[in-house]
């Protein structure tokens, strides 16, 4: 069984995180008749206990939860079928009911046509509290919903709060895990309790004892690595094996990763190291070119090894300082200039026709002078440039 479910809170006071939003939620569910708005939206990032707290309140108060989540059909018809009849009926076995629309962000504009309006229309008729959860409440599509519902925000969990959850699970599972291991897992999954619990479970499945290194290994195996972690290990260590494995688990293409590496070489390396690193990147790029031209996919191995591990071994000694990595700038810059360049190409095609030369030649040999010649407007009248083109020239 998945621990995140197995150890989900049974009572509201077991739910970690800020108390006021939780109490507000409980108040709404138990005393919804007093509320003018008949629905409540809980919003906040994943793993902050939005859904768990609803179920915890339901258990504690013997209420039935009727849930529609992203796996169900949520167009108008589907919603009315699920909820329509039970709206004003009492629960058969329990004291009352909660209607839960889990993860309303998943309502798609096309497939779930009318879904949001259907929910809005249910709000008026319902005899039971309706709770909705969302990660992205401020999305435009929810505007009609927002005005008709109470809103409660769940904040990301601190690593200390997550650590408390992990400690509780360890004691329930009878695991002996040192505090600094739990701390490491908590920090790594800051904000997201579910991810932390999943990580904890993954390492205990395969290992009886857990050490700090296991946590590092775990990350590379089980989670989509962030590019920052990869850059860190490339620039700080010479661990070829780990780099190679980690490259696969980053959720970016090899080409994108290469841009990230390229961008950050000079943040970490100096002098000879820079040269060595770019030498490896250059060779990685040659293999990439060969892959493209010859469709020889086997070369991917070399591209990957050269750009990751190759750059890693380019350093003289392991780096220990803290570094901030930056997002690749070059492509954006080149893209912007390409827009300008496209205009210039337009001009050169015009020139080519009138001057009996190729557009390439016009671009290379005529435009540099044309920029000067265009200072005298009458000289370029015969080229029939439009204003846009003229401005590009004088840029």
């Amino acid at each position, binding site marked *: 069984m998945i621990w995140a479910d197995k150890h989900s809170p049974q009572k509201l006071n077991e739910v970690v995180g800020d108390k006021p939003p939780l109490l507000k939620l409980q108040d709404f569910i138990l005393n919804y008749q007093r509320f003018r708005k008949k629905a409540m939206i809980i919003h906040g990032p994943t793993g902050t206990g939005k859904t768990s707290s609803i179920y915890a309140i339901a258990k504690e108060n013997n209420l039935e939860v009727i849930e529609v989540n992203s796996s169900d059909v949520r167009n108008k018809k589907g919603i009315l079928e699920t909820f329509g009849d039970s709206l004003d009926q009492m629960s058969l076995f329990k004291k009352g009911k909660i209607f839960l629309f889990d993860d309303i962000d998943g309502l798609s504009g096309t497939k779930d046509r009318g879904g949001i309006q259907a929910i809005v229309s249910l709000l008026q008729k319902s005899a039971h509290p309706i709770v909705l959860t969302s990660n992205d409440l401020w999305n435009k599509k929810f505007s009609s919903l927002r005005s008709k519902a109470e809103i409660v925000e769940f904040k990301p969990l601190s690593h200390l709060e997550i650590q408390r959850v992990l400690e509780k699970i360890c004691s329930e599972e009878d695991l002996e895990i040192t505090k600094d291991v739990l701390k490491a897992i908590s920090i790594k999954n800051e904000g997201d309790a579910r991810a932390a619990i999943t990580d904890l479970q993954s390492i205990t499945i395969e290992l009886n004892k857990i050490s700090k290194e296991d946590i590092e290994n775990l990350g590379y195996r089980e989670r989509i690595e962030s590019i920052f972690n990869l850059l860190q290990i490339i620039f700080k260590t010479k661990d070829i094996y780990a780099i190679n494995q980690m490259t696969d688990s980053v959720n970016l293409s090899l080409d994108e990763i*290469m841009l990230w590496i*390229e961008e950050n070489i*000079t943040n970490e390396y100096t*002098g*000879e190291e*820079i*040269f060595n*690193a*770019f*030498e490896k*990147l*250059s*060779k990685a*790029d*040659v293999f*990439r*070119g*060969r892959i*493209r031209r010859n469709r020889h996919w086997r070369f991917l191995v070399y591209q990957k090894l050269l750009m990751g591990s190759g750059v890693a071994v380019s350093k003289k000694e392991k780096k220990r300082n803290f570094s901030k990595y930056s997002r690749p700038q*070059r492509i954006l*810059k*080149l893209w*912007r*200039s390409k827009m*300008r*360049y496209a205009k*210039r190409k337009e001009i050169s095609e015009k020139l*080519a026709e*009138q*001057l*009996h*030369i*190729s*557009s*390439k*030649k016009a*671009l*290379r*040999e*005529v435009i*540099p*002078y*044309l*920029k*000067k*010649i*265009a*200072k*005298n407007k009458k*000289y*370029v009248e*015969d*080229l029939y440039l439009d204003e846009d083109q003229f401005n590009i020239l004088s840029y």
Partner: protein
Amino acid sequence: MWTEKYRPKTFSEIKGQEQIVSRVKAFVEKNEMPHLMFTGPAGVGKTTLSLIVARELFGEDWEHSFLELNASDERGIDVIRVKVKDFARTKSIRDTPFKIIYLDECDSLTKEAQQALRRTMENYSRTCRFILSCNYSSKIIDPIQSRCTVFRFKPLEKENILEIIGTICEKEGLKIEEEAVYSIFELSNGDARKAENILQGCAAITDVITNQVVYGIVSAAEPAEIKLILNMCVKGNFIKARDLLLDTMSKHGLSGLDIIKQIQREVLSLEIDANKKMDMIERCGEIEFRMVEGSDEFVQLESLIAGFSK
């Protein structure tokens, strides 16, 4: 643009290339012409002569019987073939013995494309004459050369360029220093198009053209950034050099190959030890090779200048 305004319209207006002009003129007078091939550097009159041939042969509406194609722009021989076919098929209004297809920059055709071109030439030789133009005849396969009468154009002589400059200045009412005239000639390398472009660039700024104005125009048109970049490298400032390189490429829309060619030229004039210079040249060659093999030009250039900076 003056390059068009002052493009010669008759045989007698052409400066230089006297022998070629008189032979081609003889073809036109006999109303009979083989396929021609004009080879030679840029701006020496290859296109001009072809246009005059068409005008002399076909008279006023010469454009109906003359198809101008540029091998480096018309992507692929197939495009050329279709255009040639469409053109050769229709009968022109005027009764001419043949039509002319002018194919410029043939050097840029691959060997395979040239083979295809040869077939096209044969297929339409009853109705069409080809004038092929290129910078280097050595890049054209023998079967095509053997089907053409080859004319080798030379860079224009000093007196030709001076005459051209003189004529234009007179007609445009410009004053130009003698020294400036010589400078334009030097800078143009016998390329009339370039000479006229420089001259017009100067005229756009001032009516009195001095030597200084000429050099101002030319250096602005041929960016000096590369030299700056190399100097930054030699001083070991890789990051600055790289940033300027990226700016230069995006500002001028230059390709990696454009840049590396310029770098290679500039390296030769750097003021550093000859051995180091040769190391840099070798590195240029290696990186240019990788650029052709690879896929990301900028990574290759970064690698090049990282090598220069270490």
